[in-house]
Structures are given as C-alpha cells and as structure tokens.
C-alpha cells in the first residue's frame, strides 16, 4: 500500500508513538475498528483493550490502553490514552497486582462515585489480563 496513516499515541505523561503506519486497529467503545489512510473523520471513545499497529503486512506493535479517546481523519489517527503499556512489557506480576488492587477498591467503595471509579479500575485490570494472554 502506498499511502500510510500517521499514528500518534499520547498519554498524559508523554508522547508514546508517532509514526507513519499502514493500519491501526483501535478498540473503540462500540467495537474495534481499523483505520487506514483516507479514513472518514471520526471521533470515538476507546475502551480498555489492545491497539494493533499493522505495518509492512504484519502486526508490528501491540499496545495496551486503559481507555481514552481517538480522533481519526484522512491523514492521522490520534489516540489519547489514559494509560498505555506495550503488550510485551506486561508481566504476570503487574496483572495480578492490578487485579487485586482493583478488587480491593471495589470492596472498599462506599459512595456511588467511588463505586464507579472502582468498577472502572476492575474493568481495566480485567482487560489487561486478557491482553497479557
């Protein structure tokens, strides 16, 4: 494919990825979508899951994101992630500690707002576990 799409992944802490690739598969809140060059402009929320970066006919990078937003237009995909970890860096320890913390948070939550936050954390942790497999 001649045309490439500029893929940018940013977290509040830093700009993680900025490169031209063939296709990016993003876990949108209403289902995964692949973004190629000349994609129709779109803004969507992202659920916790794994972003697959396709380049040169194979999956190059796989990055776990803990939710956020994605903006797609003809030449660019911008993913604003709350947290991003390359799949290769996910360890069993990390997954289990996150799961445990999230479960404790769910158990400790008292107010509705706390419960919502805790439920979200558990969701992220579960998605992280799925990504590690």
């Amino acid at each position: 494919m001649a045309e490439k799409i500029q893929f940018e992944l940013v977290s509040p802490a830093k700009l993680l990825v900025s490169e031209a690739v063939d296709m990016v598969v993003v876990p949108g809140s209403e289902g995964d979508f692949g973004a190629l060059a000349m994609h129709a402009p779109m803004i969507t929320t992202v659920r916790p899951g794994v972003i697959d970066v396709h380049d040169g006919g194979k999956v190059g990078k796989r990055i776990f994101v803990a939710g956020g937003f994605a903006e797609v237009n003809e030449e660019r995909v911008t993913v604003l992630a709350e947290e991003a970890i390359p799949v290769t860096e996910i360890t069993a320890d990390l997954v289990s500690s996150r799961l445990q913390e999230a479960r404790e948070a769910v158990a400790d939550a008292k107010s509705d707002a706390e419960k919502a936050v805790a439920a979200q954390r558990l969701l992220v942790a579960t998605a992280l576990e799925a990504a590690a497999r």
Partner: protein
Amino acid sequence: MPSLKDLRLRIVSVKSTRKITSAMKMVAASKLRRAQTAAEAARPFAERMERMLGTLAGSLAGQAGAPAMLAGNGKSDVHLIVMVTADRGLCGGFNSSIVRDVRRMTAELIGQGKTVKILPVGRKGREQIKRDFGSNLIEGFEGLGRKGITFPEADMVAAKVASMFEAGEFDVCTVVYNRFQSAISQIVTRQQLIPFAVAAGEEKSGELKATYEFEPNEEEILATLVPRNLAIQVFRATLESQASEQGARMTAMDNATRNAGDMINGLTIKYNRSRQAQITKELIEIISGAEAL
C-alpha cells in the same frame, strides 16, 4: 569603622549563606531537569486534547444541548481565577509575578462590576494576595506535588472546579500559571478553561474539514471528554508551574551565590586593609615610644 572581629564574623556569616544558596541552586537544578522533562512530555497530550475538543466544539457550535462546561452558561458575572503558585519562596519573582497578574486581573474585573473568586493553588500566592483581596479568596490547595505532581493530584483540583461550576458558583474560569520557557524565563499565562476558548485559527480550519462522525454520539463523548480536558489542562498548568518554579529558583540562587561571592571579596579586602592599618598604627606607636626615651 567596624572592628576586625566584626568583619571576621561578617565574612563567616556571608560564607555560610553562600554555601546554602549554592546548595539550593544545585538542588533546584536537578529538580528542574526532572520537572522540565515532565512538563515537556505533557505538552503533546494537552495540545491534542485541545485540538480534538476544538474540532468538537466547532462542529457543535450554534447547536443547543452542548454541555455548559464547553459553551459556558451564557453569563459572565462571576469569575473564578485559579492561581497556580509555589509553596515555597526564594525563587525570585516567580510568585510575585503571578500574584501581580492576578491582582491586575481581579481589579479589572471588579472595575467591570463582576464578582471574582480566587482559588489559590500553592501557599505563597495565598499569602501574598490575602492583603488586597482576602475577601475574594476561597479554600485552595497546598502542598501539591512535593515529589513531582501526579495526575490524581491535578484531578483533585479539577474536580473541585467542576463541582463548583455545577453548583453554579461561578460562570467563567481562568487559570493563571507560569509557562516554562527556559530556566531564566517564565511566561505568566492566562488560560480560560470554562467556557472552553477555541483558538481563532483552529476554528477556521475546523470549518474547512469534513464533518466528523461520532461514536457512540456527540453528547456522550463530550460528557467524558470535557471534564477530562479540564483535568488535563490543570495538570499541565501545574506541571509547567513546577518546572518554572525550579527554573526561577535556580536562577535566583545562582545570582545570590554570585552576590555573596562579591560581598566576601569586598569584605576580605576591607578586613585586610584595616588589619594592615592596625599593624602600622601599632608600629608607629612602638617606634615613637622608643624615640621618646
């Protein structure tokens, strides 16, 4: 004319001051490096967030039903100023320049018949503004980011701003902070958070582009994106401010160290001169005493 002993004590005291200032300079320099990286790393996210929100705001412009936090609630009677300063002093004009700007802005707004509320982040700003606009101050935050600011801390500030807005306690929110330019220059920046100010240039380019599709839908995205943006912008302001603080302190302490050095040189010359003068005096006394015999 101070005695020799006085001079000696002076020199010792200035020397120990120099030790302190030069140590503070080193500490600030190493903290600056960390803070600067953090501030610069946070810029892309905040900028892209703003761009995305700009696109959204552009496509929603003129439509009813946009969240109040984005479009404002149609009034501008009560202004909230979030003043980001440091908890500690000894950093040159860092805190005073923010306070000066806030003071000017408050006076202007009051002159226009508006009500102003000031939310101080950082102890120094609160102390300095208390004298002039103490009645405008509301409960603020102190001691944020002792070990480098984290996102949850910024989120706390943003949550307070958001809850105040929902309770109708203010109409317009502006954050005033020092934007980090370099170790020797920080720019006092005013950024309007609520309603979201779309940069003039961005709005035009937004119109030229094709309309965006939204998934799940505009309202839902905005409902999550707008509070998030608020938190991010506050986070960024605090990060920038922190880097600026260290930069300002480093420069101030560098100057102080240099001044102390100059002072020591001056005092040492004075000390040696008076010591010599005293020796000469004693010699003259002995010689004239001997001659008199």
